[in-house]
């Protein structure tokens, strides 16, 4: 199937939903490609609508979702939006041909049994809103079954209405750990502890930015109430040093850390009878499509690779707009504002209609920067590893193998480490281990630079695709 449009939007979470609506309402013919089966993305993920009507339980900004969703459905009904769910983009290209569409997207079914027919989408302008996923730092035992990404636990609950286990420990850094733990408790799970590596005092230099977004303080108060109601211990300057097995997660060892993340001797303790451990160290924006299309990138305050955009969300590639986490991890409210700006601009690239709510975008970006500074990846996290700790889960490459390749072969960037050790060469293509491998390659206390992260995000195929679909390409 082939679809042509004025504007193609990839992703239909907060940013993509907003972009699609704004572009369609500005008069563009819009095509929307998304891996999910219904709008919402990860943030507004909900049970299949064929089974259960979504009531917004456990969600934030649900009224925003309902408003955007109604407008999305109306634009579909009016034939302005062609919605292509259940499809993943495996290749995005610029044609560079005068008189033909500037961008071409090749897609494949996210789930083979879904029956979603692969489509080729050609569009003059493209808005990429691929979102992100939990960033991970390995610790001994993190590859055991029962260890999950914190966001994965939340997605599980939102989509399935059940829990992936009974007794949970949530660890990492950032305000996102709070809704994850609150969601578990409200669904009937026992949260034994939330371990936050940073400390509330880390916010003190950033109070100005925090008070600029008062709704975050309200959310915080909601979580505090849930934590109190369910007696969830929130331990700051604390980490999980090891997940205990042997064959699945059964407990964790924890410790207090100093401001750099160094374990303070004598503070170790153990939690037994744990069946799910959730880790989240901020988020990794999904950068493969922006990188494949050649956008200018930069390192954000949290150490993530993100795309550079102007005030209309346009990247360095003319006609290519970015919105949401790929411009800097900043949460759903910011993603919606960016999506609205990107969609409107992509619909009318030559007009100079001013961006709506530029002050709100600026406030949320300041808040995001403050959040990143207050919840950093601990400088000393590499000290938590033992040589035999798995770093690349797919290819089972250990920390020792990676530091050996760094020290004896001079492999410092993620791509060189991949060539020498196979870290990042498996199914996930370094999406999970790339950041951690890049830290190890850069050396103790270091993080990967933009070049190293871009080398990891450069993936010939953005999603696994069948050989038959490759062979069926007509050019």
């Amino acid at each position, binding site marked *: 199937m082939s679809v042509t449009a004025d504007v193609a939007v990839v992703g239909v979470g907060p940013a993509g939903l907003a972009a699609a609506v704004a572009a369609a309402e500005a008069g563009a013919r819009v095509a929307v490609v998304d891996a999910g089966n219904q709008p919402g993305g990860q943030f507004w993920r909900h049970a299949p609508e064929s*089974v259960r009507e979504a009531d917004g339980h456990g969600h934030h900004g649900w009224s925003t979702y309902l408003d955007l969703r109604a407008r999305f459905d109306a634009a579909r009904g009016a034939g302005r939006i062609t919605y292509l769910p259940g499809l993943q983009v495996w290749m995005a290209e610029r044609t560079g041909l005068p008189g033909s569409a500037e961008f071409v997207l090749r897609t494949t079914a996210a789930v083979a049994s879904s029956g979603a027919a692969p489509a080729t989408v050609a569009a003059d302008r493209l808005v990429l809103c691929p979102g992100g996923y939990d960033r991970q730092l390995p610790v001994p035992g993190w590859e055991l079954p029962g260890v999950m990404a914190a966001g994965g636990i939340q997605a599980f609950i939102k989509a399935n209405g059940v829990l992936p286990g009974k007794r949970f420990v949530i660890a990492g850094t950032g305000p996102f750990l709070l809704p994850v733990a609150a969601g578990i408790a409200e669904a009937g799970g026992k949260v034994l502890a939330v371990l936050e590596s940073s400390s509330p005092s880390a916010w003190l230099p950033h109070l100005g930015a925090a008070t600029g977004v008062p709704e975050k303080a309200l959310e915080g108060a909601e979580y505090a109430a849930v934590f109190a109601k369910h007696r969830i211990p929130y331990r700051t300057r604390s980490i999980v040093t090891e997940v205990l097995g042997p064959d699945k997660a059964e407990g964790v060892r924890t410790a207090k850390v100093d401001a750099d993340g160094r374990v303070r001797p004598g503070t170790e303790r153990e939690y037994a009878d744990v069946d799910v451990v959730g880790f989240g160290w901020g988020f990794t924006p999904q950068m493969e499509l922006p990188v494949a299309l050649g956008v200018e990138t930069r390192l954000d305050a949290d150490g993530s690779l993100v795309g550079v955009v102007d005030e209309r969300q346009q990247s360095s590639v003319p006609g290519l707009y970015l919105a949401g986490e790929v411009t800097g991890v900043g949460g759903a409210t910011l993603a919606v504002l960016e999506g609205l700006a990107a969609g409107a601009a992509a619909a009318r690239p030559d007009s100079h209609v001013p961006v709506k709510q530029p002050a709100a975008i600026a406030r949320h970006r300041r808040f995001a920067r403050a959040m990143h500074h207050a919840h950093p990846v601990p400088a000393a996290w590499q000290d938590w590893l033992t040589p035999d700790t798995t770093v690349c889960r797919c290819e089972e490459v250990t920390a020792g193998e990676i530091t050996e390749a760094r020290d004896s072969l001079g492999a410092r960037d993620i791509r060189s480490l991949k060539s020498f050790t196979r870290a990042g060469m498996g199914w996930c293509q370094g999406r999970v281990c790339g950041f951690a491998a890049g830290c190890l390659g850069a050396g103790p206390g270091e993080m990967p630079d933009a070049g190293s992260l871009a080398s990891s995000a450069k993936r010939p195929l953005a999603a696994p695709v069948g050989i038959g679909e490759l062979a069926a390409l007509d050019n």
Partner: protein
Amino acid sequence: MTTQPVTISFDGRPLTAAAGQSVGAALASQGITAWRSTRKGGKPRGLFCGIGVCFDCLVTVDGEPNQRACLVEACEGMEVEGS
């Protein structure tokens, strides 16, 4: 709206799932946390990222290998196999 539970099979044994649940959720809520062994170390794996990024939860669905259990919706009569 279909709210009847569905029955799938996992490695030949019947398993009940709530309508709309993912295969991964159907397995995990029955206490099955691992259904794949790694190629190199033979280590058990199940759900990890939960959103289709990590490919740790791969299963074979109705003969189609390498499907992400966290994304596949459990449907009546579906045959799921670990690997």
